[in-house]
């Protein structure tokens, strides 16, 4: 398909009306007759050995229906790439959110009181929150039995090292020695959160041997499979239904609490409902963005040619693997970035700690790594006397470039995105000195792969010529599923509003990886098109019989099947659909393969070493820094993206607006801070600071719509995650220009910016340690 083949009109999402009237039901809005309410007893220490659990007092409380612990569920381990945890802590608790027990009671208040009444004795162990120290040989182990866990063999696990990946190209050591200039930098990023506005909720109800679970998940099939696995029952005995989902941003990926609540409902012999408080939403999910230590070293020639990149990345995996096992390799790719690097040696380690487990949050590992790399790129540019934009102009990938693991790129819009962002933000004016002293423009480039995954859909037509799309894909709010009618309608010559969507139900839709990886349009779009094409063939066959014209000479448009060139010779789709012949298509489409690479020197190869249909991004931020306080405001922002052909402009723009603002939060105000024990210090929205409407800058968007090899449906790629990738880096580079020195800690809080500015700007430091001169 070409760039002109796309939908330009404003598309109103099919779930829009129920969302603006308040009629739409989210999981917490549902109530079942006779339901009990759930509460968890979480670990009382971040790291401790359980010596006794006594639930008798809690069980005896009036209104308590059930109290369950590890003895009440099968002894089955689970986990994404490593099976390293149980539903309920067995012997050791490894972070403050480890679940020790669960209670079902008549009211939420009673459930919480009963959970608190469970007696748990511990032998307190030393917490191991320092993930960098945990990576050292001989460090105390978070999981003493790690070798006995089932898990992926290719992860390179070793003790506290949950995963180790390298990206190796050529001989970086030798090339580094030949470089004109070598630049080094060390960067630290704190953990952060997906922080959806909807705290999660789960309701489970058993009917006979089958459990139905309503849950706020991005990945209903993973949730279903997790319930079946941990309770030792067939997948056919678990049906997961997702009511409207109030955002996820990755944090509602993976199987979380559905198994606990299903087990609790079975024990309570009634439906059980769990609704998290905001505090629990921060502390309890084994799912947050990983803290990182990023060490980079680059050898560059005076003309900007990058001859060598060495890097060492250390990622905080937290207490359990979850679905974050691929992080080490993903981070290593982002330490390379979308640049031509002649030689590479990047090592990346994902390390256990007794902190909250890390797992996918919007573009996992990328914003932090890109933030470090893009500051490093500005440092390289400064070292050879080039403007940062010029260095990127010279080194960004283009068609024919060879990637860090040997991938040969096809057409990519990296350089176009750079130029577009510079134009949108007015970079030339800035270089001419037309901004006040306390403002500057920073730029950053980044990338993100398209993810191939099996997916499926059905399309059926009703007797009046309307249709239903039945899909296993999940909607998280992004609108990706909401846009599927556009694709079906285009295949069938119908209007998008002719279709309703049936999704959110694992018993009806085909398996899908869910609302993750920016891949719903890429994979499920392909499936919907394939299914619609089956219906198209059926319609053509029927019309061919009725019109007595060869199917090859017919076309579908405007709700009719008609003779090409003779629009009056036509039969309506409604008439064909009403004729009694079932019109039903199913599809998956052909799964694209990852591009080949050269990985013979790499370890921990997990499929991220080459990027299928990569999305290329440049962001530019005009920042204003209050140089006396370190408070930073982003005044204006430009985002240029090669995400292939844009199928639904309002939806794609929405991903950029939201993703950039989430990136601004990560850059300036959002972090989960742990105390020395590994407990969260700010599990609430007052001190975990999301950006507000009055903080949000105007954001200018440009889509670089070029034809891409291996693109998804109608030339599309993905749009959900890339907008978060280069945002912190662009802001960082702007801040550094204002205060004269970079800030190597993320988020770049006011205090951190000010701490750098105290030295770089020579701010006054009032020493109040002595005697008050006025006293």
């Amino acid at each position, binding site marked *: 398909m070409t760039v002109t083949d796309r939908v330009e009109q404003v598309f109103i999402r099919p779930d829009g009306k129920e969302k603006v009237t308040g009629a739409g039901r989210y999981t917490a809005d549902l109530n079942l007759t006779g339901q009990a309410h759930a509460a968890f007893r979480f670990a009382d220490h971040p790291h401790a050995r359980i010596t006794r659990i006594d639930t008798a007092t809690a069980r005896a409380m009036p209104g308590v229906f059930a109290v369950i612990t590890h003895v009440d569920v099968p002894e089955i381990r689970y986990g994404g790439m490593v099976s390293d945890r149980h539903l309920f802590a067995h012997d050791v608790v490894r972070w403050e959110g480890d679940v020790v027990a669960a209670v079902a009671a008549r009211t939420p208040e009673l459930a919480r009181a009963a959970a608190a009444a469970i007696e748990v004795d511990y032998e307190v162990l030393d917490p191991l929150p320092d993930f960098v120290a945990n990576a050292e040989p001989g460090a105390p182990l978070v999981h003493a039995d790690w070798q006995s866990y089932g898990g992926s063999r290719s992860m390179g696990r070793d003790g506290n090292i949950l995963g180790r990946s390298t990206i190796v190209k050529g001989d970086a050591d030798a090339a580094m020695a030949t470089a004109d200039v070598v630049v080094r930098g060390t960067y630290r990023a704190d953990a952060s959160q997906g922080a959806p506005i909807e705290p999660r909720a789960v309701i489970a109800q058993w009917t006979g041997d089958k459990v139905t679970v309503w849950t706020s998940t991005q990945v209903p099939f993973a949730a279903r499979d997790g319930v079946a696995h941990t309770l030792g029952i067939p997948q056919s005995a678990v049906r997961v239904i997702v009511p409207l989902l109030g955002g996820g941003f990755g944090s509602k990926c993976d199987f979380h609490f559905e198994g606990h609540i299903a087990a609790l409902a079975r024990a309570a012999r009634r439906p059980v409902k769990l609704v998290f408080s905001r505090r629990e939403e921060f502390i309890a999910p084994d799912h947050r963005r990983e803290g990182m230590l990023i060490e980079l070293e680059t050898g560059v020639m005076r003309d900007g040619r990058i001859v060598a990149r060495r890097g060492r990345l250390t990622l905080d995996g937290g207490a359990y693997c979850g679905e974050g096992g691929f992080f080490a390799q993903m981070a290593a790719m982002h330490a390379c970035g979308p640049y031509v690097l002649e030689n590479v040696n990047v090592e990346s380690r994902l390390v256990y700690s007794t902190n909250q487990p890390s797992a996918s949050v919007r573009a996992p590992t990328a914003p932090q790594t890109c933030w470090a790399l893009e500051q490093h790129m500005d440092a390289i540019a400064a070292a050879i006397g080039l403007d940062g934009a010029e260095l990127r102009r010279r080194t960004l990938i283009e068609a024919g470039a060879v990637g860090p693991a040997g991938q040969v790129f096809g057409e990519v819009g990296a350089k176009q995105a750079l130029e577009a962002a510079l134009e949108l933000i007015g970079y030339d004016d800035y270089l001419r000195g037309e901004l006040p002293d306390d403002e500057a423009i920073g730029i950053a480039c980044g990338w993100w792969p398209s993810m191939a995954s099996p997916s499926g859909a059905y399309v059926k037509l009703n007797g009046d010529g309307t249709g239903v799309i039945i899909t296993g894909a999940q909607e998280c709010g992004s609108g990706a599923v909401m846009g599927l009618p556009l694709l079906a309608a285009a295949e069938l010559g119908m209007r998008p509003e002719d279709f309703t969507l049936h999704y959110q139900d694992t018993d009806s839709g085909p398996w899908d990886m869910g609302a993750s990886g920016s891949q719903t349009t890429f994979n499920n779009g392909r499936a919907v098109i394939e299914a619609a094409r089956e219906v198209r063939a059926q319609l053509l066959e029927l019309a061919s019989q009725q019109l007595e014209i060869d199917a090859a000479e017919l076309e579908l448009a405007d709700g009719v099947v008609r003779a090409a060139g003779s629009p009056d010779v036509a039969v309506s789709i409604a008439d064909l659909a009403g004729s009694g012949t079932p019109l039903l298509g199913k599809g998956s489409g052909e799964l694209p393969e990852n591009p080949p690479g050269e990985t013979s020197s790499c370890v921990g190869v997990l499929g991220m070493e080459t990027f299928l249909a990569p999305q290329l991004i440049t962001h530019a931020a005009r920042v*204003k820094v*209050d140089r*006396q*306080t370190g*408070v930073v*405001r982003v*005044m204006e922002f430009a985002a240029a993206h090669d995400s292939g052909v844009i199928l639904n402009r309002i939806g794609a723009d929405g991903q950029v607006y939201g993703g950039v603002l989430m990136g601004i939060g990560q850059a*300036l*105000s959002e972090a989960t*801070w742990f105390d020395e024990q590994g407990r969260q*210090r*700010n599990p*609430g929205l*007052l*001190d975990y*600071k999301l*950006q*507000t409407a*009055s*903080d949000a800058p105007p954001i200018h968007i440009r889509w670089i719509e070029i034809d891409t090899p291996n693109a998804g449906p109608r030339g599309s790629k993905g749009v959900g995650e890339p907008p978060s990738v280069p945002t912190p880096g662009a802001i960082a580079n702007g801040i550094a220009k204002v205060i004269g020195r970079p800030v190597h800690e993320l988020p770049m*809080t*006011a*205090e951190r910016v*000010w*701490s750098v500015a105290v030295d770089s700007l020579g*701010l*006054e*430091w*009032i020493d*109040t340690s002595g005697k*008050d*001169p*006025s*006293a």
Partner: protein
Amino acid sequence: MSGRTYTQAGSVADAVAAMAAGARPVAGGTDLVVGARHGKSPLPQAMVGIHRIPGLDSIEVDPNGAIRIGALVSHAAILDSPLLAEQAPGLLDASAIVGSHATRANGTLGGNVMNASPAMDTGAPLLCLGAQAVLTGSSGTRRLGLDELWISPGRTAASADELLEAIELPAPSGAGARGSAYVRLQYRRQMEIAVVGAAAVVRLSADGGRVADAAVAITAVTPVIVRVSAAEACLVGADLSGGGEELEAALQAAGRAAAWAATPISDVRASLGYRTQMVAVMTRRAAAAAIARARGQQVRVPASDWSVVR
């Protein structure tokens, strides 16, 4: 649920009677209920709603020129008052950045003051304006300066049966233009709690050539909000003529003096060291804005909004 009671007061006397019987007053609920949610202290067992008591929601000038702000006047009403915009813009600076527009619509000045939080935004400007609390209890009505009212974080000198009826701002004394301002350190423009704040009220000499009088108070860096006389002394007498060097030196000195007066803590919002230095910055800015206003220059409300193009 047993034992929890709620009554609705129709008059100050109703409220005082209920309070004498052990009930706690609730007005907008923005501090009390949120405080309970944060686990500060549970909601009281016995409560009396005071939000519908007539006559406590007006802003009036008494014959002596004092401004009487009823205890139930909301932050939104303060922002809407041309009188306060003219006489006490520093109070508007504070009310404009309390919570969100919902907090400002429901939250009352009286609730804010009686909550006695060292981080309350309205506290420092009120203290600098010489505000008095008008308390009515079983044994009558009395007036207390805010420095006497606030005892420690969350505690006031009011007895359990004393209801705050109003805050009174005394009439300005002395010739010369006045100006006031409140500035806080804020990481976001809205939805913040003060990490460091400072207020200043100044009166210029009759000819406008120098600072004749000054009040400075600091927020969120001492157990209760306090005036800083050493900072005030730095400002008094500052010559405003010429190139502004003397004013700048006075502002710097006032900032330093305020930093010395602060006894901040380190927590997740800021370190002790950063807070201390920011006391100086906020004090300088508040004093500069107050002086600018006194000289008739436009300073946007809220004065903390440094990044918004005017």
